[in-house]
C-alpha cells in the first residue's frame, strides 16, 4: 500500500482495439485513506494468458475484482470486450459477468452443494440447456480436470488442490471468453502446484480464452504466461512477454525475481 496522493485530472478513455479483451485505464482505488491502485493502466490481449505478479497485499486480487465488477474504482475506466463497465447497474454487470469465469483463491465452493451441483450451478442459472445436456457438460468438464470420480462428494471432503480444480471447473463450464484465476497455487505443495499449472494450461488450450492470472509462484508464471505484468506501489511498473520479462533491467523486477532482500523494494 502506498501513501495518499493528491487528486489528478482524469484523462479521457481510449476505446481499446479488437485485440484487447480487457483494458484498465488510469485506475485509482483507495480503501479509506490508503491508496491501493494509482493511475494503473494495463491491457490484456485477447486469447492470451497474462499473469499479474507483485508483492503480497499489493492489490493483485483487487485487479481481478475490478475486472469482474465486484468492486468499482474511485476513478478510471475498465473496458471488457470494448464496453466500459464502470458505473454500470448490477443487472448490466451480470450480463458481462456471464461471459467471464472467476476461479477464487480459496475456491469459494458452495459448501452445501456437491461437486457436480457446484459445477452445474452456472448452467442451471444462465442457460436453457436440458438437464441431460447439463449433466454431460459437467461430466466432460470434471473429466478434463481429472475430477470425474469426485462428482458426488461435498467440497469439505476434498483436499485443497482438488477444491481449487473444482473451482476451475465451475469457472470454465460456461465456456467463458475471459477466465480470472486468483492465486491458484497459493498454499499448495510443489506436486499439486504442478497439477494446477497443468490444469490452467489444459483449460487454455481447450477454451483459447483470455486468461488473467494473479500469482507470485514464478516457475508456474513462466510455465503458463504469454505476458507478465508486475504491480508495485499501486501501478504497473513492467509489462512484457514471458521471455522478455526475465531480462527486464528494472531493479524492482530483478529484486522480485531473485527474491533478494537487498534492493529498492522496501521490506
Amino acid at each position: 500500500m502506498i501513501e495518499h496522493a493528491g487528486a489528478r485530472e482524469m484523462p479521457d478513455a481510449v476505446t481499446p482495439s479488437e485485440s484487447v479483451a480487457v483494458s484498465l485505464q488510469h485506475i485509482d482505488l483507495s480503501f479509506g485513506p490508503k491508496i491501493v491502485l494509482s493511475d494503473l493502466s494495463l491491457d490484456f490481449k485477447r486469447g492470451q494468458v497474462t499473469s499479474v505478479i507483485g508483492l503480497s497485499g499489493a492489490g493483485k486480487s483487487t485487479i481481478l475484482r475490478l475486472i469482474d465488477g465486484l468492486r468499482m474504482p474511485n476513478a478510471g475506466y475498465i473496458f471488457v470486450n470494448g464496453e466500459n463497465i464502470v458505473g454500470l447497474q448490477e443487472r448490466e454487470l451480470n450480463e458481462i459477468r456471464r461471459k467471464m469465469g472467476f476461479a477464487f483463491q480459496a475456491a469459494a465452493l458452495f459448501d452445501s452443494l456437491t461437486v457436480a451441483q457446484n459445477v452445474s450451478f452456472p448452467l442451471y442459472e444462465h442457460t436453457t440447456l436440458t438437464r441431460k445436456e447439463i449433466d454431460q457438460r459437467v461430466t466432460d468438464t470434471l473429466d478434463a480436470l481429472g475430477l470425474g470420480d469426485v462428482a458426488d462428494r461435498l467440497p469439505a471432503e476434498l483436499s485443497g488442490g482438488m477444491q481449487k480444480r473444482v473451482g476451475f471447473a465451475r469457472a470454465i463450464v460456461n465456456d467463458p471468453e475471459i477466465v480470472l484465476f486468483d492465486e491458484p497455487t497459493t498454499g499448495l505443495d510443489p506436486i499439486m502446484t504442478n497439477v494446477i499449472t497443468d490444469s490452467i494450461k489444459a483449460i487454455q488450450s481447450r477454451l483459447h480464452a483470455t486468461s488473467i492470472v494473479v500469482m507470485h509462484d514464478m516457475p508456474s508464471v513462466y510455465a503458463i504466461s504469454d505476458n507478465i505484468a508486475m504491480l508495485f506501489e499501486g501501478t504497473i511498473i513492467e509489462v512484457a512477454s514471458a521471455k522478455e520479462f526475465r531480462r527486464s533491467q528494472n531493479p524492482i523486477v530483478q529484486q522480485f525475481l531473485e527474491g533478494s532482500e537487498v534492493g529498492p523494494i522496501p521490506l
Partner: protein
Amino acid sequence: MFRASFYLRTLPKSFPLTRRFFEYAGGVTLLLIDSVRYILALRFRPSEVVRQASFLIVSSLPIILLTSGFTGFVIALETAASAQQYGLVNIIGGSVAYGVVRELGPLLTAIVVAGRAGAAITAQLASMVVTEQIEAYQSMGTSPTRVLVVPRLLACIIGLPMLTVFADMISVWGGYYMAWLRIHLAPSTYWVSVQQFIDFTDFEKGLLKAAVFGIIISIIACYEGLRTEGGAEGVGRVTTQAVVTSIILIFAFNFALSFVLFR
C-alpha cells in the same frame, strides 16, 4: 449490492451516528425492496423456501413449545390465586388467552426465532462472505439476494405464524393445566372464559404480527450476514448484532402494531 452509502454522501460528516443510522436503515430497506421485487417476479426456488422453512420450524419448535408452555403456566399461576380470592375465577382462561394470543405468543415466538434461526442465518451468510461464496454468486451473474435472502425471507414469513399457532395453543393449554392444578378450576369455566375474551380476529392479528416479525428477523439477519467484514471475529460480531437489533425492532414493532391493530 447496497448503494445506500451513495445517497448519504450529502450528510455532514460531523454526525457519524446519524449517518450510520441512515446507512443501516437505508441498506435494510433496499435489501427488502430488492427481495420483494424478486418475490413479485416469482424469481425464487420454491424447494429452497421449503428447505429453509423446515429448518426454521424444526430448529425452533422444541424451544417454542417449552417457553410458551411455561408462559401459560406462569400467567395462570399468578392470576389463579388472586382471581379465586376475589371470586373472579371465570376470567382466568380469558386473561391467559388474551395476553398470549394478542401479545406474548407472537412476541416470544419471534424472540426465540431471532435467537435460534436468525442467528443461524447471519452466521451462515457471514461465513459465506468470509469464504468468498457471496462473491462467487456475484461473479456468476447471480444475485445473492435472489438465491439466499428471498428463500429465507419467505421461510420466516410462513414459518413465524405457524410457530405462533403452536405457541398460542401450548400456552393456553398450559394455563388451563396450571389453573386446574392450583385451584382445581373446572374445564368448562376455563374454556368458556377463553371464548368470551378473544375472538378469531385477535388470533388473526396475532398471526399478522408474527409475519411482520418474520420479515424483521430474516431481513436483519441477512443484512448483517451479508455486510460481514473481518473474518471469524466479524462473523461473531454480526451474529450478536443481528440478534440484538432484531429483538429491539421486534419490541418496537410489537408496540406499534398493537397500537394500530387493537385500538
